[in-house]
Structures are given as structure tokens and as C-alpha cells.
């Protein structure tokens, strides 16, 4: 009896020895800052004096009244939209074409589509910034096409349309990732099932809807979750590409927070924005969990 109990005790000690290093580091970096951030968001923290006075909901009220906050939030949702309805379907389509071997040179094409995803986002951002700039490659090309040396890309100056050229960059950068994920999972489908259905005389579309789609339902949900969560992170790319400009039209929450905190030095307000980002993350987590339990497989 004693032995079993002590063995149980040892086992739980071993259990914690295994998880503690990860847990401590993780809590220190994620949990502690999130809590601090919530606290600071109700204060006027001054980093130079290292002093904080409580100001209540002031920052949140100001945020709700600020147009640029809402533009930033809307832009974040545009990015989610581009991811879920752009990158994922295109990635899926490309993966399917490669999987069914409809085109040749699959290895080459696959490499080309995925390549942008491995390059540093900051490099990609600066590169496309240069291409879109007034003296950049794309602008110059369009000026030659229109035969107008003063031509400029008007669309970059429109509040929501500015995201159209940017979405090209987003799709270019991340579609490859989804393609690889779908391709990997398509290749896990037992070829025997496909052969069997072909022998049974199923058409290409029947195979697609009856065999392929059902087996990928789970992956589609997971990629959607990844896309939604990843979209809140669209900082580096836009930071180097537009830095939120012109006039805050391409602002996203992360840049908005960055500007208020590190440029304007309003740490309380920046913390309030951080807290809002966390809240949105939590809501999205809950939402995707719900979607997952309804339509996908159980994650755990």
C-alpha cells in the first residue's frame, strides 16, 4: 500500500518535472504580460518616471471614439477575409491540381508557390514597398503601359481599396503555406479508395465531392483557425510595406498599438489596445472552437 502511494507520488513529481520547464517559461512570457497589460490599461503609466496613476476606463473610451481604431479593426477583418476566402481556397485549388497531377512540373510549381512563405516578412515588406513606391518597379511598369510618366496607383490612396494591392502581397506570401498543408493531407488519402471509385465509374466531380472533400473537412477547419489567428499578427508585413499609411488607411491593430506605445509613449493606451487584441483573440478562439465542434473533428 505504502509503496503504491509513494510510486503515485513519484509519478506526479515526474509529471511536473516534465512539464514545469515549458510551463514556467510559457507563463512568464505569455500569462504574466497579459495580466500586467490589463492592469496598466487602467492607468496613465509613465515609463520615464516608472509611475502609474489609475485613470479608469479613460483609454477604452478614447479608443472607442477614435476613427483610426475602427479603421484598424476593420482592416484586421479584411485580412481575415483575404485569408479565409483568398489564401485557403486558392491554396486548396493549387494543392488539388498538383495532387491530381493535372499540370506537369509539380515539384517546380510547388516550390515556386511556397517560396515566399520562407522569406522573412520584413524583407518581403520592404521589397514590395519598393515595388509599389512612386519610383518603384510596378509604378514604372504601369507608367510605361499607360504612356504617362505621372501615372500613379490611385487605388493605394483609397481607404479600403488600398487593401486590394496589399491583398495580392498577402495572397502571394501565404497561399503556399496552405497549399502545402492541403497537399500533405491529400496525399494521405488512400489511393486505393480513389482507384476503387474510378473503377465504379465515378466522375471527377463526384470523386471530389464524395471522396476528397469529406476527408479534408477537418483540415479546412484547422486552416481556417490558423488563418484567423494569423491575421491578427499581420504586423511585420504592413509595418515595412505601408506603416499604416497613407493617413492611417492601412492601419491594423498591432501597428496602432505600436504607434501609441512606442512612438507617442502612451503606455496606458497601448496596453488598452493590447488588452483589446487579447479579447478579440479569446473571442475568435471561442468562435473557432464552436465552429470546430459543429463542423470539424474534435481537436483534442
Amino acid at each position, binding site marked *: 500500500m505504502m509503496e503504491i502511494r509513494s510510486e503515485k507520488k513519484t509519478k*506526479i513529481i*515526474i*509529471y511536473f518535472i*516534465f*512539464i514545469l*520547464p*515549458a510551463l514556467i*517559461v*510559457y507563463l512568464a*512570457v*505569455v500569462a*504574466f*504580460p*497579459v495580466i*500586467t*497589460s490589463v492592469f496598466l490599461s487602467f492607468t496613465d*503609466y509613465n*515609463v520615464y518616471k516608472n509611475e502609474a496613476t489609475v485613470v479608469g476606463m479613460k483609454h477604452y473610451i478614447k479608443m472607442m471614439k477614435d476613427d483610426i481604431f475602427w479603421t484598424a479593426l476593420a482592416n484586421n477583418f479584411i485580412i481575415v477575409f483575404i485569408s479565409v476566402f483568398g489564401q485557403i481556397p486558392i491554396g486548396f485549388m*493549387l494543392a488539388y*491540381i498538383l495532387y491530381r497531377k*493535372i499540370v506537369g512540373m509539380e515539384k*517546380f*510549381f*510547388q516550390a*515556386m*508557390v511556397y*517560396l515566399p512563405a*520562407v*522569406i*522573412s516578412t*520584413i*524583407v518581403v515588406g*520592404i*521589397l514590395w514597398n*519598393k*515595388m509599389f513606391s512612386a519610383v518603384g*518597379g510596378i509604378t514604372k*511598369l504601369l507608367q510605361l503601359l499607360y504612356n504617362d510618366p505621372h501615372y500613379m496607383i490611385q487605388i493605394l490612396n483609397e481607404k479600403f481599396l488600398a487593401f486590394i494591392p496589399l491583398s495580392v502581397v498577402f495572397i*502571394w506570401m501565404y497561399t503556399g503555406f496552405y497549399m*502545402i*498543408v492541403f497537399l*500533405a*493531407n491529400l*496525399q494521405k488519402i488512400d489511393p486505393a479508395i480513389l482507384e476503387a471509385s474510378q473503377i465504379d465509374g465515378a466522375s471527377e466531380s463526384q470523386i471530389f465531392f464524395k471522396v476528397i472533400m469529406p476527408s*479534408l473537412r477537418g483540415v479546412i477547419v*484547422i486552416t481556417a483557425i*490558423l488563418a484567423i489567428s494569423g491575421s*491578427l*499578427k499581420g504586423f511585420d508585413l504592413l*509595418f515595412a510595406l505601408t506603416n499604416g499609411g497613407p493617413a492611417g488607411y492601412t492601419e491594423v491593430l*498591432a501597428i496602432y498599438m505600436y504607434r501609441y506605445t512606442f512612438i507617442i509613449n502612451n*503606455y496606458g493606451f*497601448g*496596453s488598452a489596445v*493590447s488588452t483589446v*487584441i*487579447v479579447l478579440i483573440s479569446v473571442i*475568435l478562439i471561442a468562435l473557432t472552437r464552436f465552429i470546430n465542434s459543429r463542423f470539424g473533428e474534435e*481537436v*483534442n
Partner: protein
Amino acid sequence: MAKTDLQKNLTSIGIKIIFYVIFFTFTILTILPLVWLFYSSFKPKAEIVMNPLALPKNFIITNYIQAWTIGKLGLYTINSLFYTSVSTIVSIVFAMGASFAFAKLRYKITVFFYNLFLMGLLISIHSILVPLFLAETWVHLQDTHLGILIPYIALALPVAIYLGTEYIKGIPDSLIESSRMDGAGYFRIFAEIVFPMCMPVVMTVAILTILGCWNEFILVFILTSSESTRSLPVGIYAFSGPLAIEYGLQFAALVIGAAPMILFYAFFNRQITKGFAAGAIKG
């Protein structure tokens, strides 16, 4: 019948052409900017501004030499290698240990801890940036190597633990039980049996972590300020800050920044793809 076959063939040829066009569009979009970047990096500053599309008239490599020396890109590359390798190794060891415990030493509390880590998959790094900066300032970790390694390790853990736990769950319990019968302790079982069996998932996690750490920008940008602690992406950004005018150097720096990952991809292309196939994103 023959006619519909012909039609079918025609449509399938049409579809094929469309598909080829789509893939070629992606290929061109990938290659052209990189080619443009590459040849522009051999142009002097004024030529880049005046004739952005033209091939270099005066082919110069001084851009590279200057970018490398005055931009301290050598030092930044070493820093990047250090951050990437240490974070990858430590996070894998930590994550596989935790994954083993979660998958095989089952306790009720596992559900809580495991979900806590899964939350991290969706938490944006930017939401913790401000307090992390302040916290590191308070404990004097700001602008130190350790101050970068700790968040890098922590942020790599959620994916690693998710993939690791799912993978280890697939290892039969009987294997572990029989080793227990033979008198092996859990540490030995982990080190000698489970960990070696996890190599495929370890590879996947390693690739994901390497890509993530090597390309990471904002944490180093905010949490460090000295040359001795900054990494390559931040070093490259220094050439294109708000007041930058040295476009030649900037382009050379961008090539230097992009090249390592393109090479990494060229060499590990198969592993990256296989990694995902090995159960990266659970289907």
C-alpha cells in the same frame, strides 16, 4: 459520343491551360520581384531611383561590401544563428518532455495545462509586446540575449506541444508499459524510447521553429537596441528606416536577408513538405 469526347478533351485542354496560367502567374510573381531585387542590388543609388526597371549600367558590388561591413550584417547573422539554434533546441526538449507527460502520464489537470498551451497558438505576439518590454526593463533583461531567447522559446512551445502530444499519443501504451515492467524509469523511457521515435515530428517542429525564429522581427526590434543583441531582420530594416536614402545598400541587404532562407528551402524542400505530411497539421 465521339463529339462529347472531343468536347471533353477540348474542355480538359482548356482547363489545363487555365491551370498552367495560374501556376505561371504565381511563378512569375515569385521570381520577378526577386530577380528585380537581385539585379538592382548591383546598381548605384541614383540609378535605382532614376531607372528602376533597367539592368545595371554600372555594375557594382560595393553595395554588398558596404552593406555587410557598415551594416554589421556578419554580427547580426551570428546573432540570428544563435537565437535560432538555441531556441529551437531548448524549445524542442521542453516541448517533447511536456508532450510526453501530457500524452502518457495522464492526469486530470492535463486538460487544463494542455489547453493553456493551445491558447498560445492563437494569442498574437503583439498583444504581449508592451508588457513584455516593460517586464524585461524591470528585471534588466531588456537588450540581452537571454531576453530574446526566453520569449522565443516560449512562443515556439504551443505549436511544438500540440504536434508533440498528438504524435506521442500515437505511440502504443504497451511499449511504455513493457519498459516499465523491465524496470526502466520514465526519464529513461522518454530519453531512450519515446524521443527517438518522435524524430519525424521533431524535424517538423524544428523546421517551423527555425523559420519562425530566423524571420522574427518585432520582438528583437523592440526588446534590443545594441548591435551585440540585434538580429538579421532588424539589421536589414536599419537600411530602410524612415530616413534611409542608401538604396543600393538597402537592396544588397535585402538580398543578404532573403538568400539564407531560399537556400534553406532549396535544401530542405522535401523535409518541409514531408514534415507536414508526417502529421504537421492534423487532418
